[in-house]
């Protein structure tokens, strides 16, 4: 079975630009979560979607937004990029509420 897939794997953007990250969950998983992992830190919760509905939002500015599509795939959008947005962005899908299955992430570098 395919695991969680994320695209692109790497991305370099300039300050002020916009970025869209994509995630395909494991087949049958209806919940998708997004986490940000800064180097040397643990993942930090950004959003959770279940059945296309936003269930939770972490402590991130409104420049961060997400959505989930009818096929349960998801997009994370970040506007007006800042240097501090450079991080590994992880998508996770789940059947059980706590058993997250992570993809390998998108490494975003903002210059």
């Amino acid at each position, binding site marked *: 079975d395919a695991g969680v897939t994320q695209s692109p794997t790497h991305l370099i953007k300039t300050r002020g630009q916009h970025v869209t990250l994509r995630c395909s969950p494991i087949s049958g998983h209806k919940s998708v979560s997004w986490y940000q992992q800064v180097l040397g830190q643990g993942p930090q*919760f950004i959003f*959770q979607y279940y059945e296309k509905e936003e*269930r939770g939002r972490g402590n991130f500015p409104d420049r961060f937004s997400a959505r989930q599509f009818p096929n349960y795939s998801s997009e994370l959008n970040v506007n007006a990029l800042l240097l501090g947005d450079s991080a590994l962005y992880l998508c996770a899908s789940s059947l059980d509420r706590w058993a997250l299955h992570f993809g*390998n992430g998108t490494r975003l570098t903002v210059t």
Partner: protein
Amino acid sequence: QKEVEQDPGPLSVPEGAIVSLNCTYSNSAFQYFMWYRQYSRKGPELLMYTYSSGNKEDGRFTAQVDKSSKYISLFIRDSQPSDSATYLCAMSDLMNRDDKIIFGKGTRLHILP
């Protein structure tokens, strides 16, 4: 005080040794406790989970939760070089509508051949 505290290491131990990894937390509402392993350039992988207090064993891995002390541990027996990775503790109360999981910083573990 951070919700979850974890020593970042690095922790270096010889092959075959018993490894002890620990986290403390401050939120008494946490009920679900997890350990994830993350290899370099990969996403975290769920190793073990426990609900409330107690022990759970899976092969060479044992997870312990002491809710009275707000302290969780992961023990690795007969450690192997392939166990070299970052280990993240994680926890959640799941009483909220969202499924937010709080992660520790992670402990970098090196098993020396």
